[in-house]
């Protein structure tokens, strides 16, 4: 179980923790959405939060982001307690949350704009990331002129451009068509390898979670808790094209499905 990534092979078995969730509970009135949930997110890796709908995975993500307050418990990012949104985390939204009245360039630079970065510098940085996500030539387009997949690339570029240590992705590809989703998943693997960031990734797709994750946390609902943490080892270093044929990949997908199937209405 020590082998996480080829890069980390020589490192100690217990990875460095970027984000830790300690005994977090969240109540909405009398409804317990999360109960005493604890989880650790290793630095430089992608961790998926996977579970049936209503298991509170988005709630947990928004608590980590500082968008929702936890009822009890503590979140630490790099050892510092979370008390609200911070520049160490950036969020990618399920519905993209682009400004419809702003160009792609301004949308990507918007995070920097809010941080008070001067116009020339933030547009320079935005342009780099627009290029990185493959949207070169669309800088002056408006969101309604883009396809769903392209819109999410804008959302991704916006989150990357603020250069936060932790990237929080809330079902980022669920509103994107299947082919684009596959391309995104491959791009995610590349991002994790190149960007030296910690990714926390909420998804309801078992295949997607197993495909992109270094670590998969299975959440079960009512009240939400971590039932299992799975760390795929055998296929992380393989070529992206071969992962879906790997026996370990298929076994894990099967195993997760058999533990989740009872929770599907």
């Amino acid at each position, binding site marked *: 179980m020590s082998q996480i990534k080829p890069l980390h092979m020589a490192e100690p078995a217990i990875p460095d923790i970027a984000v830790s969730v300690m005994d977090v509970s969240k109540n909405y009135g009398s409804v317990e959405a999360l109960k005493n949930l604890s989880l650790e997110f290793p630095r430089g890796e992608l961790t998926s939060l996977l579970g049936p709908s209503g298991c509170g995975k988005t709630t947990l993500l*928004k608590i980590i*982001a*500082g*968008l929702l307050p936890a009822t009890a418990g503590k979140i630490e990012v790099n050892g510092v307690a979370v008390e609200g*949104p*911070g*520049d160490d*985390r*950036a*969020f990618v*939204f*399920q*519905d*993209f*949350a*682009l*400004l*419809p*009245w702003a160009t792609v360039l301004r949308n990507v630079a*918007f*995070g920097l*704009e*809010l*941080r008070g970065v001067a116009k020339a510098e933030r547009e320079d940085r935005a342009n780099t990331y627009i290029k990185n996500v493959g949207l070169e030539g669309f800088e002056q387009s*408006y*969101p*309604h*002129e883009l396809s*769903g997949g392209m*819109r999410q690339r804008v959302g991704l570029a*916006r989150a990357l451009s*603020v250069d936060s240590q932790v990237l929080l992705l809330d079902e980022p590809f669920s*509103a994107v068509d299947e082919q684009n989703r596959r391309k995104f998943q491959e791009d995610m693997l590349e991002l994790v390898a190149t960007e030296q960031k910690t990714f926390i990734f909420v998804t309801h797709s078992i295949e997607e979670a197993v495909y992109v994750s270094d670590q998969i946390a299975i959440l079960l609902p009512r009240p939400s808790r971590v039932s299992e943490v799975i760390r795929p080892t055998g296929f992380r270093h393989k070529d992206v094209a071969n992962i879906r044929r790997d026996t370990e990949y298929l076994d894990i997908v099967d195993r997760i499905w058999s533990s989740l199937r009872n929770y599907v209405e």
Partner: protein
Amino acid sequence: MQRSLIIKLSSAVFVFGAWEIAGRIPVSYAFPTFIDSMAALARMSLDGSLLAAYGETLQPLVVGLIISAFAGIGMGLAIGLNAKSEWLFSPIFIVMQAAPLAALIPILVMAYGIGLTSKVAVVCIMAMPVIVLNTSSAVRNTPVSMKEMATSFLATKRDVLLKIVIPAASPVIFSGLRLGVSAGFIGAILAELKITPTGVGDIITYSRSIADYASMYAAIFSIIVLAVVFLNLLEKLENILFAGNNRGYVSD
């Protein structure tokens, strides 16, 4: 494109033709033909009387609309952003929206006389509620994820208001203004017909009293055309200004 133009034209020819025929029968002694009415319209436009009349009619309308726009948007923002002012003020405008405010005209006349003030007040009470209610609901319905997005990227409250809430609300605020203008026209004409006949209202009232129905119809025709054309231009402007503003969300 061609087809729709042809249909629009034939529809116009049909309606105005029916007007002409009905005037020729005539269906009523007070129903002039279309051609007579248009002739009267041309005459009044050429001798300048129509222009002078609009100078008078538009005065309370413009003043009233400017006041309503500023006060209405300000009040709408206050209601939409602040729970206390919502509790305090929104019931007034909800009642105003449902109530036949024209009934206040006699009181306004008693309080402010028959001059410009009363007419401006009539335009204001007609135009303001829709502006206030549109603004407040637009502000309240800012997409949550956009606000969350800004917050997650460390926006201050002021940033959220100026960079998210107001731009997101502006299409609905603008269409509230357009509806306010529409209601303002109703108020301005009502004021001229009910309070004192001035401007276009004077032409209507006077030509009715001397049974010059062609001039009366011409004046009414002109004010309706003016209002409709102006409102259509506003709508066009709205579409240009806010193109794509309501799209670009995941739901489309």
